[in-house]
Each structure stands twice: as structure tokens, then as C-alpha cells.
């Protein structure tokens, strides 16, 4: 029974973490932008959905929330990130500043109290005798679907080829007529799209408040670093390792369940000591 609990809860939590990590990995993998405001975009999607859902229907609200976040991501890229793209540390600082700006804006507009976003799928189902929220299963399905769709787009289309070429070798890509700027916009737009989808799928399982982006960012960073920066399957695997480590701690040491994140991060450190490039990443030497 403990095993079933670990298995089911671990898988479900993997879906939630994976959904958050995918967009971040995508933006870095194809645009080489470490966007620390990624989870702030997810937060904006959740708040926009919260604001609109009582005013228009759920589908319209979800669509508008997605539009707002993709537009925000593209504007941020155009105005803040593209001009600074060559200065990685500056990009980090600017994206953190952007996240803090969005945090303060939401605090001003909605206050600090907790809000909630309605679930697309309410209720629960029993899997191997363990109760699982249907919304959590939806997040898991979303994560798998987004991974598949992104993989098909990147590997199976001319657009994907252009984006990959721009990410791998910028000078050569330009020589064959690929617009680096265009590829960057596509990648950031896709990253924004996945952040918005995460807002729709994961936010109903979270406390909606203006600081919610920072704990999520820690999980996302840990997952993508563990999986290998920029690798999409790596991000999902990293998310799964963290999720299972956390669930194991809760089930095996209930009195120490506050240590779940610490233990998960310790697992990350151990993996990185053994494999510094992460599970699916390019080694640092190769990167240079």
C-alpha cells in the first residue's frame, strides 16, 4: 500500500512539476534565454484566469489568459531580453526584476490573500487504492501532451528545424538564411504558451498568491538543471526524480516531511556531482 502511494503520488507530482519545467527548458533549449520570469508568467496566467472566469466562460477565460501570457512573453523578449541576449548574467537579473515587477503588480491589483482557480476537472479517482485529484491527472496528461507536441514541432517541421539550427549554431544558421530573431520569438512564444497552459492545468492545485512564482521557480530550476539545461526529456525526468524523492520522504519519514524539498535538492546535488551536465545535458566542455 505504501508502494502504491509512492508510485501514484510520485507520478502525479511529476506531472505537475514537469508541466512547470517544460516551458523553461524549451525557452533555454531553443532560444538560449534563461528566463527566470517563467513561473511569473505561469502566475499571471493563473491570475488572469481567476479574474476572467467569473466574467466570461471558462473556455474564453482560458483562451484570453493564454493570449495575455504569450503577448507578455513576446513583449518582454522584444523590449528586454533580445537586446541583452548576449549578456547572460544581465538577462538573469532582468528576468528576476520582471518577475518581481509582476509580483508587485499582482499584489497591488489583487492583494496578498489566497485566491483559487476553479479546476477544469473537479473531484478525484482512485488509482491502486490511492485517491488522486482528477485535475492532477489532467496536469500529468497535459505535460505528456505538451512534450509530445513540442517534440513533433521541433523535430518534425521546418519551423522546428529553423529553431534548432538557430539554437545550435547561430552563425551557420544565419549563413543559410535563418532569422535568428524570428527563431527566438517562436521559442519564447512557445515558452509563454507552455507557462500559460501550466497556469490552466496546475494553478487549480496551488495557492494563488503573488509570491507563488518563487517556490515554483526553485522546483523548475532544480528539475531542468538535474535533467540537463535545455533538454526537454531531461526536464521531465528531472521533475520526476524530484517528485519521487519528495513523496518517498513523506511516506517513509512522516515526522520529517518538512524535509521533502531539502532531500529532493540533495538528490539533485548528488546527481550533479556524479554527472555535472545533468541527466540529459551537454557536458560543459562540449558546451564551450
Amino acid at each position, binding site marked *: *500500500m*505504501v508502494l502504491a*502511494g509512492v508510485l*501514484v*503520488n510520485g507520478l*502525479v*507530482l511529476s506531472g*505537475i512539476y514537469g508541466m512547470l519545467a517544460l516551458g523553461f527548458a524549451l525557452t533555454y533549449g531553443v532560444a538560449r534565454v534563461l528566463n527566470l520570469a517563467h513561473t511569473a508568467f505561469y502566475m499571471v496566467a493563473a491570475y488572469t484566469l481567476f479574474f476572467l472566469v467569473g466574467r466570461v466562460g471558462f473556455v474564453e477565460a482560458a483562451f484570453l489568459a493564454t493570449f495575455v501570457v504569450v503577448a507578455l512573453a513576446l513583449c518582454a523578449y522584444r523590449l528586454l531580453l533580445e537586446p541583452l541576449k548576449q549578456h547572460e548574467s544581465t538577462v538573469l537579473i532582468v528576468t528576476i526584476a520582471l518577475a518581481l515587477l509582476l509580483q508587485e503588480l499582482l*499584489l*497591488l491589483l489583487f*492583494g*496578498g*490573500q*489566497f*485566491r*483559487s*482557480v*476553479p*479546476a477544469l476537472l*473537479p*473531484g*478525484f479517482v482512485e488509482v491502486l487504492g*490511492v*485517491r*488522486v*485529484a482528477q*485535475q*492532477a491527472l489532467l496536469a500529468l496528461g497535459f505535460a505528456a501532451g505538451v512534450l509530445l507536441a513540442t517534440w513533433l514541432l521541433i523535430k518534425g517541421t521546418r519551423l522546428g528545424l529553423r529553431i534548432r539550427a538557430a539554437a545550435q549554431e547561430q552563425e551557420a544558421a544565419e549563413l543559410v538564411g535563418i532569422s535568428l530573431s524570428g527563431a527566438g520569438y517562436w521559442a519564447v512564444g512557445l515558452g509563454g504558451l507552455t507557462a500559460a497552459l501550466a497556469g490552466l492545468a496546475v494553478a*487549480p*492545485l*496551488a*495557492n494563488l*498568491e503573488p*509570491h*507563488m512564482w518563487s*517556490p515554483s521557480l526553485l522546483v523548475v530550476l532544480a528539475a531542468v538543471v538535474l535533467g540537463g539545461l535545455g533538454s526537454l526529456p531531461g526536464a521531465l525526468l528531472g521533475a520526476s526524480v524530484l517528485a519521487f524523492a*519528495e*513523496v518517498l520522504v*513523506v*511516506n517513509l519519514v*512522516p*515526522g*520529517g*516531511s*518538512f524535509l*521533502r*524539498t531539502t532531500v529532493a535538492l540533495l538528490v539533485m546535488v548528488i546527481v550533479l556531482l556524479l554527472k555535472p551536465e545533468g541527466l540529459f545535458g551537454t557536458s560543459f566542455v562540449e558546451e564551450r
Partner: protein
Amino acid sequence: MNKWGVLVSLVLLSSSAWAQTIRIGVLGPMAYLQGRHTWYGATLAAEEINRAGGIQLNRRSYRIELVRVDTNEMVSVPDAATAVERAIVAQRIDFLIGGFRSEAVLAMTEVAAEYRKIFLTTGSAAVGLTAGRVDQNYGRYKYIFRVSPYKATDIIQTTLLQLGEVIQTLRQQLNIPQPKVALLVERVLAWDPVIEPASRIISAPPPQGYGAEVVGVWRPSAVATDLTSELTAIQRAGAQVIFTLLSGPAGTAFGREWGRLKIPAATVGANVDAQQGTWLEATSNLGNYVATINFIAPDIAITPKTIPFVVNFRTRFREIPIYTASGTYDALYILADALKRANSLEADAVIEALETTDYVGVGGRYVFDKLHDVKWGPGYVTGIGVQWVDGRMVTFWPRNWRVGNQLVGYAGTRPYQLPPWVVEAWRR
């Protein structure tokens, strides 16, 4: 009168007006419900006191002037300490009221002690706020008085009494002779020392204890946002009651997932998030049937002053007051009462008057002990137990609380209601 005469008269008039104002700094995280309600509570009290002619000292009438001090304490403790210092030095505050987050209140009271400013706290339950300070270094910390809530050890005592009520309900309604209890206690300093004695009381046979079985203790982080794994583990352990001690955001995560997964265990204890009128909105209406200790409820007259306060508050601010509102409202009246009795603004005289306070406010009868904590128990402040039922906050404790030969209860309390899925799961 020439122009110089007019000018001199104006200066004299304005200095005289300044001298007849008592400036009170109202401290809190103003972007948050807790801080906002601190301000609202102070505002109501100040307006009432001023309307009634202010505070008479030495035959002079003093008006209360509130200064809103946003401490940002939810995010930064240093910000809170700096805000208090700025209020004292730059805004020339006479007295301080408020504060919410214990870590920040500890820092803010240090600043108040440094500047010898009387500080009535209305948000923190940490035992160490007064114990080890007022008793061991009275000269430095005599300026601190805790009005609301009462200290954490009294909170535990109250929540255990409420747990006893729920255990009794399980026995009577579901015929469970030895209910199984899971402890879900966030990892904060205040709760660490209480787990072992609480477990002992729960499992000890009556009359010393409740004769229940403790199936486990889960200690999530206070800032946990997902308690699904803990809850499914508690369900697997066969718990019929979850005794919660949650003061951080984990409280909302608990209510939401407990309701979503319909965990077949009744819940009782402390859940600070569930004390707020926004609880159901925060949990997507999944927090129905969650119960928690509280200090004010919309429909219970703890004293004759409670309902008028709640009505005025709701009319004016369109929200259900939380304990920072009622505590701050009472604190301002307690301060006004002490000032009148001291007939002075001088700190030592006011402290002496505060120490002999015996005041009936909206939250109960306030009498300070030697630690400057309010006395807990029948006849003083007791707190209440509330449960969310059908979208409303309903009071279930104290109903027939037996203390010696005395039965304690407030009119309008209703029995604790077991969630339907708990009844369905354990009906025998």
C-alpha cells in the same frame, strides 16, 4: 489685531492642537488581509473614541490620530523593524499597536523596547514574545503587552478541548470506541514542544485523556503548498480525525486537498487560513467542514460588545472581521482605558495602569498576567471553535464545556458536524 498677532495666534492654536493629539502607530502587513483588518479594527475604535469626546487627561481632551505603518512583515522581517523605527523617530508615534508574523513582532518589539514605546501586540501567539523577556528583563521589556491572540500554549489547550468534542461526536454518532487520530503539525518552533504532550493526552485513557489512538504525526513545512502525499498517507493509516496545527499557507493547501480528495477523517485544531472570511474562496469551496480555533465569529456574542462590533465592521468594510481586527479594536480601547486611569501619557504610569487592566471587550474579558499576557480561561478570554458548514462559519465550541461544576458556553453555538463522506466511510 495686526498680521503678526494673527500669525502668533495661529502658531499657538496649531501647537495646542498638536499637543492634544495622541499618535498611535498601527502596524501590519497592509497588502494582506491580516494587516488590513488590523487597520480597520483600529480605525473603528479610534472613530468611536473620538466621536465620544476623545481621551480626557488632566482636564484636556486628546484626539486619537492613527498612523498607518505598512511593515511588509510577510516578506521581510528587517523591513518590519525599520518601519517601526521610522514610525517612532520620523512620525513621532506615541504608542504602537498591531503586528502579525511572530518573527517580525519579535524584532519590532525589540525596537519598541529600545525606544521605550508601549506596544500592544494583536497578531502573534509566540510564547517567547513575552516569556523570558518581560519576566527576566522587566526594565527593558515592560513596554510589551499581548492583547490578542493569547499565547500558543493556551491555543493548544483550547484546540485539545475542541478535539475532545470531535472525538466524543465520533463515539456518539458513529459508534467508534477508540477513534484514530492523525496529527498534522507544521514545522514551526511554536508547535515543537506540544506534540509529545498532545499525543499523550489524546491516547491516555479517560478521565486524564481521550482514550483515542494516535496513528502518526506528519510535519509538513509551514509554507508547503501541496499536502496530497501527507493526506493520502493519513488516509492509509486509517485516521478518523486529523488534528491540525497550521498557521501558514499549508492551511489552505490542506483544506483544498482534504475537500477535493474527500479524505474520510474529520478535521479540527488550528488552521489560521480557515479563520478568514475568504476561506471558501481560497479553497474553491472545497474547505467546507474544516474546523479551527478562532477568536471571533459573525454570529456569537462572546460579550455584549461582540455582535455590534461585527455588524459595524461588516457594514463599514463589507468583510467578516478576523482576529487581528477584533484584537486591535479591543487593544485601542484597553489603551484608552489605561490612559484615562493613569491620567498621563508618561510611559511608566501607563504601564502601571495597563497592568491593572480589567476590561470587557469584543473578544472577552482582558486581564493581564505578570508576563503581560492576557489570562485564558472561563471568565476571561477563551476563544471559540468554528466550523465551515454550508458556506457559513458556525461556532461549535464552547457549548457545554465543563469546568469544575460550571458549564461554559455561548448562545448560538451548534454541535460539530461530521462531513457526510466521513459518516459514509465509518458508519457501522
